[in-house]
């Protein structure tokens, strides 16, 4: 538990967009997926996911449809729009630049 990292401000959006780039997904699925992909290191306060989804939807980067989940229940599926895809690309780019720069400053441990 102690190894889990709090999410830096603003990265939640990036993670959501990245997850949705793979396939449309509902909110719970996204939280599961992020945890999986980060090998359980990143911890999302699950509640904070939904405001973020609504915010991204308002910006027009993702869209939602109601569909049926794998266990046959009605679930709200989000998918990436075209501008969402562009957004992901630029966010990813700037994130990589940022981490590279920070890594360089910190130097080899």
């Amino acid at each position, binding site marked *: 538990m102690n190894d889990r990292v709090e999410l830096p401000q603003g990265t939640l959006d990036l993670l959501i967009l990245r997850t949705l780039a793979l396939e449309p997904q509902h909110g719970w699925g996204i939280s599961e997926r992020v945890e999986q992909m980060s090998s359980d290191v990143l911890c999302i306060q*699950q509640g904070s996911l939904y405001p973020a989804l609504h915010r991204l939807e308002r910006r027009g980067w993702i869209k939602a449809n109601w569909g049926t989940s794998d266990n046959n229940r009605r679930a709200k599926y989000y998918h990436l729009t075209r501008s969402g895809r562009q957004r992901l690309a630029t966010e990813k780019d700037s994130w990589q630049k940022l981490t590279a720069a920070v890594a360089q400053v910190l130097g080899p441990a």
Partner: protein
Amino acid sequence: MLSDLFFRLRALFRRGTMESELEDELRFHSERQLEKYLKAGLSRGEALRRFRMEFGGIEQVREDCRDARSVSLVETMAQDLRYGWRTLLKSPGFAAAALFTLALGIGANTAIFSVVYGILLRPLPFRDASHLVLLNETTPRVGDVSVSYPNFQDWRSQSHSFAEMAAVNPVKFNMAGSNQPENIGGLAVSPNFLPMMGMRPVMGRGFTPDEEKAGAAPVVLLSYALWQSRFGADRSAIGQMIRLDSQTVTIVGVLPQDFRWVEKCDVMEPMGVWATHNDSATNRADRVDGLVLGRLAAGVRMEQARAEMETLAAGLARAYPEANDQFGVNLRALREAFSGDVRPAMLVLLGAAIFVLLVACANVANLFLMRGAGRAKEMALRIAIGASRGRIVRQILTESFLVALLGGVAGVCLAIAGIPAIARLIPPDTLAGANVGMNGAVLLFSAAVVVLSMFVFGLAPALHATSGDVQLELKEGGKTTSAGARNRLRGLLATSEVALALVLLVGAGLMMKSLYRLLAVDSGFRSEHVLKLEMDLRTSQYDKDPAVIAFWQQTLDRVRALPGVESAAVGTAIPLTDNHNRTDITVEGMPLPKPGSFPHPDIHIVSPDYEKTLEIRLLRGRGFRHADQENVPRVAMVNATLAQRLFPGTDPIGKRFSFGNEPARATWMTIVGVLADTKMYGLANPARLEVYVPFRQAASNGMVLLVKSGQEPTALVSAIRGIVASIDQEQPIFRIATMQEVVNASVSTRRITLILLGLFSGLALMLAAIGIYGVISYSVAQREREIGIRMALGARRGDVLRLVLAQGGKISVAGIVIGTTASIGLTRLMMKLLYSVSPIDPATFTAAAFVLALIAMVACYIPARRTLGVDPLIALRHE
């Protein structure tokens, strides 16, 4: 952008659907997560607990989702408004106090601003009005004078700074017909005058270029108002003839309704008609009444135009030294000419009104803080169950907004009622050229004031309400924790109220002292029981001097015979006005100066008894007699200033002088008397050189009839009207007033400024007193227990009283010190309104501080006395 809008709209209109979708979405999540925990082997109870921990507060998440959709802004606003409305209704006393205070503050600002806007800011209804400039000539001997018509013609042909120029000469007419003959005002203008201002007659035609030349057929444009009153707005008026003076004139058009000029304009004639019967049109040395309107050429600034005109004037002075030596040009924006002299008073009053609003805001903030203390627990509770601090700030600001809005509406209503009273601040001449009242711009200003005051009085209490420690508030019911900070804030607010009130009080005090000193000035005459009536003999029967003299003599003889009349006289000018004829004089035997440096006194043509009627002191020699007539040697009186200036150390009686600057063509007049100086140009202005000549030796068509009576002078008006009508049926009498009214009008701007400043400072004083009272009484209530303990431990009532009074004392002393410092800086701005009082007059400052201290003490003492009634037993048991 579009999708964003669509999303918000959908969210707004389909609020129910969105809410239930959110519900479904969150339920789906929680079910899946619980399933997951159960599968991992947790008990149902453990799973639920773990879920709550990892998910966070479900209500918080819902709220955040609404925020993210950001429609919630509108929704919560509506919610806040409803909630705010209910809380206000729940505490009507608080609401009424806050509303009343704000209504006064906002009302004062709106009313003053409406006048400021109408006079100083509202764009003039002319094309590119900011490029219109009014030009007049100046001479160091008297200051601003009119423009000689030939000089205007040279300016127009030689200047490059102006795209266009037009001459504007005020003219007067006697209009006969209908019931009572009237004297009306008009303008003789160059034909390009109206097009240059971007105006066209609403009916008929404007003037043609030919109508600038002398000999033009007599035509006029009617003002819209005259067209309505005199012709019942009948279109067939165009082409009709009216009689002005003795001339029959054709109406060719009607001026637009929004045309206005610095002076009242009932009719407008082309310059050619004026030039036909005015020698001044060709005599360069004549500066009768004319001004020049210019439109700055594109890209030319005022300073450039001024520089060019000065060069031009210097050239004209060299070319025509007889007429132009020592004459320069003055330029001012047309706007300034329209706003007259009231600008400084207006700005001071607007500043004062803003101060009143600030005091009102401080007071309302105090009310909010006081109420905030009672609601601390409620707020803490709301924060504890998940409301964000931002949400609470918004809630309180919404309540402030409601109060400000309602206060604003009430204030605007107050202002509408008050505007006519404040408009009396403006001399009628200036007011005629303005448009004062409620309008869009004024309402916009009031709206801005409402929003601004909402922040001024709402923000501090709002931020304060959320700054407390939630746990402590809940535990102790908000009595101990933030109460200290809140009291400090309230003390600070009360201090600023005292300071602001002091500044206003000092301002009012300085105005009062100025007005007092001004009215105590020796005006040189006595206004009591004197009536003035003006007449202008304009018809052709008065073309010859004997007819004019006969008319005045006959009028005087018959008025003097009226019962109750003590004395009567006619004169061309009366004190406290500023429209005088002046001319060069040559004193017999004096070394001849350059043409522009001859003595240039005002010339008053008066009848015998003039000085007796106005009780002007005769210092030496004699006044005019009936014998000073046409065929006897010419005589004159001078004022003390002229006697001193031109005949220092010698007796002026018997000395001779002549009008004009050519001794060779002199008609000598012998000085027979010296009159004391009178305040001819306003109480605050110094005396100038003045010469009096008898009316039988220098006939004047325009005169003021002065009648001194033993009783109420206005009772004589109808009798005098009867006398004049019996001599000449068609002779109008105008501007009838008592001299007392003339004196009052001359100080009316100052007087009304004083009244308003007094009103404002009284208001601020009252609010500040209420502020202090509130702070002290609240702190007494809060400290009841402490006081109880002190008294139980043996403190005497006097000690306790002193303790409470000290708090009020600190507030008032701090406020007075700050206010005095601020006043020293601020009163300089009202310098122009003061008369023989220093803006940092120590007596006024001391008196203001004393009054404020006294009132603050009373405001403290009343609630402090309540400590005397504290029963230690009850106060302690209460806990």
